[in-house]
């Protein structure tokens, strides 16, 4: 099966592990990620104001590109996914906005592309049984804390990934890989996000809450799908590794080799 793939800027630079292992693991699981040609940065955050059009055009172009190939659009970066999914939702539901966008772009886009986060692709297009089957280095009961943050789950009316207050999608994957998920209450609380650029101390407090909560739960590693979350958490977690979920997946599926990310 082939899907359209939107990697995003960070995955080409600071978060190469997220990208490289996403592709490798997908191949093992029978899915080819076809990178969209000439994609542009999603902008990192979705501006909720209805009159903001220009900042959403790159997402619409990516969605249109996937539509032309009759493929679903997958991204693995939480931020890209959030922006693209919210843009798609606005194209479907806000006709005034959609009309304005379509006046800018050369092709009319109708909101019909299906948008998947890599996690949803694993759950809905691959299936936990298939993942289990492909595991070669099971995690042997390692206690892993899934960190969702905000972008994957909220706003739930649009994201519709999982129960926003008690999600299970990453935990199910951890279980499929032979690990034991740690359920801790800060897994869907904010890490401090982009405010790290404006008020690093505030952002630090938020990340600290998450890391402490995960450690209290007995986790030996924290996994995330968001480069900014990883950056923020890393600073607070000298004694607990924060890794991308694709790295963990690659480890268990036996496709992680040292030096991959360089």
């Amino acid at each position: 099966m082939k899907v359209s793939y939107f990697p995003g800027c960070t995955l080409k630079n600071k978060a190469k592990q997220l990208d490289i292992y996403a592709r490798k693991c997908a191949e093992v699981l029978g899915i080819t990620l076809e990178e969209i040609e000439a994609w542009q940065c999603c902008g990192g955050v979705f501006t909720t104001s209805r009159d903001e059009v220009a900042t959403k055009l790159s997402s619409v172009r990516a969605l249109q590109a996937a539509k032309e190939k009759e493929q679903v659009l997958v991204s693995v970066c939480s931020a890209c996914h959030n922006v693209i999914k919210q843009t798609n939702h606005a194209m479907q539901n806000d006709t005034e906005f959609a009309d304005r966008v379509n006046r800018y772009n050369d092709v009319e886009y109708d909101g019909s592309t299906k948008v998947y986060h890599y996690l949803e692709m694993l759950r809905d297009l691959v299936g936990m049984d298939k993942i289990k089957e492909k595991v070669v280095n099971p995690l042997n009961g390692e206690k892993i804390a899934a960190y969702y943050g905000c972008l994957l789950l909220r706003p739930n009316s649009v994201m519709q990934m999982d129960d926003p207050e008690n999600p299970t999608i990453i935990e199910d994957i951890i279980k499929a890989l032979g690990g034991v998920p740690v359920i801790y209450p800060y897994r869907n609380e904010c890490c401090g996000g982009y405010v790290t650029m404006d008020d690093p101390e505030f952002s630090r407090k938020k990340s600290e809450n998450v890391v402490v909560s995960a450690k209290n739960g007995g986790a030996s590693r924290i996994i995330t799908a968001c480069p900014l979350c990883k950056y923020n958490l890393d600073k607070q977690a000298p004694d607990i590794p924060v890794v991308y979920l694709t790295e963990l997946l690659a480890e268990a599926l036996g496709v992680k080799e040292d030096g991959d990310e360089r």
Partner: protein
Amino acid sequence: MQRIGVFVCWCGSNIAGTVDVQAVSEALKNEPGVVFSANYQYMCSQAGQNMIIEAVKEHNLTGIVVCSCSPRMHEATFRKTAAAAGLNPYMVEIANIREQCSWVHKDMLTGTEKAIILGKAAVAKVNLNTPLVAGETPVTKRALVIGGGIAGIQTALDIAEAGFPVDIVETKPTIGGKMAQLDKTFPTLDCAACILTPKMVDVAQNENIRIFSYSEVTEVKGFVGNFDVTVKKKARYVNEDICTGCGACVEKCPMKKVPNEFNLNMDNRSAIYIPFAQAVPKVATIDPNHCNMLKNGRCGVCSKVCAAGAIDYKQKDEYIQEKYGAIVVATGFNPISMDKFDEYAYNQSKDVITSLEFERLTNAAGPTAGKLLRPSDLKHPHTIVFVQCVGSRCAACAEKGKEYCSKICCMYTAKHAMLTRDKYPDTEVYVFYIDVRTPGKSFDEFYRRAVEEYGVHYIKGMVGKVFPEGDKLKVQASDLLNNKQLHIDADLVVLAAAIEPDKSARPLATMLTASMDTNDFFTEAHPKLRPVESPTAGVFLSGTCQGPKDIPETVSQASAAAAKVISLLVKDKLKGNPCVASSDELMCNGCSSCERVCPYGAITYEDKEFRMPDRTVAIRRVAKVNPAVCQGCGCCTVVCPSGAMDLRGFANRQIIAEVDAICK
């Protein structure tokens, strides 16, 4: 040709404020058939009615048009007036120039113009009216009460007291409902069981009352005074007539790990069980999903220990048919699921509980024998946070909560908070509220006592999230009056879950053709003036199936419903509605379309002999309407392809005459 009198009502300024009533009565004077036209301040008053009676006599009127309020208000009044004047009551037509005209228009000119048009339509109809005579049907003098909670119990007791037989159908193995699960009741703090169980015993001992427990209504046919009901008595694998309720089977049953629904699954029961000590009927029931004997034939202990020989593993579901004159719905409520509110961590911590669970935790017959211990480690909680309005007043999305106020939560939370402080003064109790709603006798005084005498911390604000960390529940909340965010380390969090109608209500409403609102509460015939009657004749409403209410209100409504039932059952015969469908046999082509659409099963087909023009006899299949069952909805007249089916009082030609008059 009719001789019609037109009477235009001012309704004080309700109509006359926006409609020129003089112009209306003048304009209608010139309509065909009208021989008299007048207007008056209040047509429904005694003077107004006398005016009609005199006009009938003086002008030999054969038909009457009253231009006034909705026929729902005063059609019956003016029909009686017509009868008093010696006219057939069905020679009266109402033109609704209030609700459908003066109240919705602001401009006198358009209002008057519309009132005249509505009056003309009514005149056109009366010109084609014919006297109608209502038939009579006998009344079955027995009532059915569906639901055996406090509402159903009170209704049944009152009806039985008046001397009529009543059957209670209850889905659970015992009557008692939610009230049986409560600990104390507000605002008097008397023990729920102490006041409920004597009533349950009264029900059991009343010879006019039969209890069908562990049963459900599966079919309802018929109509007011003559309902045919099928009740399914589910197999309980115990012979109810022999079982003495000694409990030996319950004690010896080896399967003891069944979640106990009576204690909201906070402890276990055995596979054969009696829900609680005061159950009525006090007989055991085998849970077929957990009984080894029923599942794989390996056990049989209960049968061996039963001295009475009441165990019957071969028992089958039984269907009982019975006739009733009236049906009372008392299906009650349930707290909503907390699954969609996991910011409060209900599914993540055992120490986040609902208020009903809190009732069981403080009840002497509950899982902790009445000691307030938190479920996770059975330790005494020192800090308790109560959260109000969980899922009530929630309009964010329909699948999450309920838009309405659940009404009872403010008071039971005040009760929980007060009782906790009374019994365990070392416990800090916080209540987060949006508004405290206490409109009831002695209610606000009760809430203030919780604050002033018992030192409960009432905080205007909401809990945003509960973080289970270690053995604490970290509660993050707002204190709006102090503009603060609070962080409380709690041992127990209690959620005042919204209440919703029982899931059985919707299918039951379909069976009864009774209407419901969008929240699945039963709709009353009139929100103020007929609050215990359903719009469907012979169906009455008791308790929370109609809307959230507390015990005193439920009991009041239950008795009111009983009074309505009694006043129906004392009648030997009921006057039917003469506005029913009838079929012209000569035009009927026997297609069965009408039979298929009739929601009441009022239409049957029969083979009938017809003498043909050539003197031969032909047998044809034709529709026949049972006028006692027909409710006059008119579906059949619409689907009839040959125009044979017509509705008396609303004949096609009458409706068309009205439309013509409006469009002229």
